[in-house]
């Protein structure tokens, strides 16, 4: 299935504001954060290098690898934070 992913900061410089990414389905019409991590790592050496330091948010909340992602969810990949 296709999922649109938002990028920020260094990842946005490399990949643009957002991209539509193809991810393996876990159930019909549903993928997982882990599958999206793999898809993004394949897309970007920088993302691959960040590995677990890259955070993922689904619908504006932090998500973990097993969390489901469905069409219409807002998914963001967040490089290491530097607020404050």
């Amino acid at each position: 299935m296709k999922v649109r992913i938002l990028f920020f900061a260094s990842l946005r410089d490399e990949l643009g504001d957002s991209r539509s990414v193809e991810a393996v389905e876990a159930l019909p019409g549903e993928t997982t954060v882990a599958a999206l991590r793999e898809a993004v790592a394949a897309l970007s050496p920088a993302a691959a290098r960040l590995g677990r330091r890259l955070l993922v948010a689904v619908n504006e909340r932090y998500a973990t690898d097993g969390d489901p992602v469905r069409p219409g969810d807002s998914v963001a990949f967040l490089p290491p934070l530097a607020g404050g």
Partner: protein
Amino acid sequence: MPHLSREPLDPGALLEAARRDGDGGLALFVGVVRDNNDGRRVTEMEYEAYEPMAEAEMERIEAELAGRFPVVRVLLRHRIGRLRIGEVAVVVAASAPHRDEAFAACRAGIEEIKARVPVWKRERGPDGSVWVDPGAPLG
């Protein structure tokens, strides 16, 4: 109430907004842009956020701190955009009847912001620009 601002932040006004008439101790943390980072000269810092999530996360932090520190009122603000040296990037205002709780909640507020609020900064200086990564492995 918006927690993210493109306009300059006013720490004193936020502290007064946090105060209630039963409060005697007010603690404030202000993060400003400094002229150096990791040994490099800095002339400007550009902050960006994943805005809807940064707003939501700062609201969640305020609500959590209200639970952890019931007698304290904590308010959080973060600036985005291009900031010069000395400009205020972040403010945590904590108002409480007594100073112990005010200090504890203020400290917790800035730690939670740094750990959780999706904000990034691009450092600009004489040698070009770089995204700041506070936790980058050395070497």
